[in-house]
């Protein structure tokens, strides 16, 4: 793995070219081109229905695209099941509604991919899981079940679960929008910490504070296409497109 990573070190983490996707006859993603460098942190925002979640869900093939090319960590996405599984091994994902497995303990949630994908011995898997749970500051809850935790705690477990497979890139699909306000910070803190450690991240979020602190680039999407992308200072202070200005005034307006 390490050798392979080293060999590809200069290649971009994710390359998307000419991506088009339809739901039935509805054109959700239109001519998307996007290159994500290693270690880059990108925040994607835009009105609901703009296709931002669909875009990142295409990256680990939770959605199938009809046109265009997606290359993740040097591997081109095909419809081959084995290839898709290989790509997913490098891509961690965090969902809006956590999607933890309710019948497994926090520890088992974190061990399941290590056991069945990486085929690690139980002791080693548990050690890794506990280390990562420590990082998201929830190690003391390891033996509890997801239903016994608060929303913020569940989302941190979900981040830990994704980190346990040692991914090269993390996708966040509106990780804080299902949370009560007082729990948003604990999740964002973990994400900021992760960004500091150099993880490549793509976050769909409306947390503009987070975007200003950690993002290298902010992408604004509308009607299935990328309208504007810029470093956060430029994006927030001098947005060029009218749509971006309107969107920003709506979410920062009050």
């Amino acid at each position, binding site marked *: 793995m390490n050798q392979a990573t080293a060999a590809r070190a200069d290649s971009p983490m994710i390359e998307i070219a000419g991506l088009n996707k339809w739901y039935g006859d509805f054109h959700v993603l239109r001519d998307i081109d996007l290159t994500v460098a290693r270690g880059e942190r990108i925040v994607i925002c835009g009105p609901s229905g703009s296709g931002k979640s669909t875009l990142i869900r295409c990256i*680990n*093939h*939770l959605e199938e695209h009809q046109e265009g090319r997606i290359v993740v960590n040097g591997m081109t996405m095909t419809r081959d*099941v084995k290839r898709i*599984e*290989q790509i*997913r*091994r490098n*891509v*961690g*994902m965090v*969902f809006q*509604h956590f*999607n*933890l*497995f*309710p*019948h497994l303990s926090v520890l088992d949630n974190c061990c*399941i*991919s290590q*056991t*069945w*994908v*990486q*085929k*690690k*011995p*139980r*002791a*080693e*898997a548990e050690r890794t899981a506990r280390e990562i749970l420590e990082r998201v500051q929830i190690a003391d809850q390891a033996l*509890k*079940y997801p*239903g*016994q*935790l608060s929303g913020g705690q569940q989302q941190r477990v*979900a981040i830990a*679960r*994704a980190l346990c*497979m040692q991914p090269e890139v993390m996708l966040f699909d509106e990780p804080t929008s299902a949370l009560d306000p007082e729990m948003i910070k604990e999740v964002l803190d973990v994400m900021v910490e992760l960004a500091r450690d150099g993880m490549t991240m793509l976050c769909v979020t409306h947390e503009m504070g987070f975007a200003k602190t950690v993002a290298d680039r902010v992408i604004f999407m509308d009607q299935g296409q990328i309208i504007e992308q810029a470093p956060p200072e430029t994006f927030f202070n001098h947005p060029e497109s009218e749509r971006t200005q309107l969107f920003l005034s709506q979410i920062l307006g009050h």
Partner: protein
Amino acid sequence: MLRSSSRERGPLWRDPTFRALLVQGILLLALGAFIAMVVSNTMANLEARGISTGFGFLQDRAGFSIPQTLIDYSGDSTYARTFVVGLLNTLLVSAMGIVAATLIGFAVGIARLSPNWLLARLATAYVEIFRNIPLLVQILFWYFAVLQALPSPQNSHSLFEVIFLNVRGLVLPDPQPLAGFAATPWALLVAVIATWWLARHAKQRQAKTGRPLPVFKLGALLLIGLPSVVFVVTGMPLEWSLPAFKGFNFQGGVTVLPELIALWLALSIYTASFIAEIVRSGIQSVPQGQVEAAQALSLPGGIILRKVVIPQAMRVIVPQLTSQHLNLIKNSSLATAIGYPDLVAVFSGTALNVTGQAIEIVAMTMAVYLLINLIVSALMNLYNARTLLKER
């Protein structure tokens, strides 16, 4: 003396505690009066008809024969034995029905979710047809329209001249164990224990080294292979009594009553249509997000099914499935409509008509079903408590 800690009371008849007591008192009185009336009426009626009460009749000679008995039984046996024979027949058809209904139900339920449009529609049609036709109609249909229309024994349908189907039932070869056959069932037992040990060992090995064992394949090999090898090594000590048509009927072999076949078919097909719905909704109750999360962890399809979907679906399926199994056991009492000798037919039917001991016999019959219900409910509560999702 006025104590400040006691509450002031309104009039007694408006006090909630008093009212509750009053209502319950009235209920108790009414119930008591009702029971007393029923008992005295019944006593008077029984006396007028010259019927003695009590369970003494169970020791009397029954004097009628039963076409299918799993234990030794003749006209000289007692009513107590009639009861046991009927109960065993009920349990036999119920067990056969439960196995078949569960298998068909799971197959149809999964087929309803198939991406193949035609197969899914066919499964839906199965469910909509069979669950909307009364079970009794289906039983009568299979018995009178299908099985009674079969040819007479001399013109039987046959499969390879060893299995015969005619109006008197299904005639199958009867296995006759010879000396040394006992080794084969023992081998099967050993194989079962070995498979159980293998599963445990595989789990430990995976925990220690991370490498899983193909338990399913190895287990299947063991369960089929070991008894087969022992059977062959001991010289295949099993003789088949093949049915052969002689005179007016078949000699040798074992005959399955057409009543049993009809009842079994109808119970399985009918109950399966309900089980299919339970299985479908159970699988659909697992949110799509669970599968997506598992996919995002790059778990392979088989593992997603085994470790994520099935455990969560089963929580929803098992309690409803059990209640369908209970329904099947209760519905097996429709046997009496075609004369399959189940508990209700031989005991609440024949024995009741002969002895006239209505109260004892109906009570004993109902008690059997209540007891089965009680046992299964207790087991179900245990299961529910064990699989309860822990929540705040």
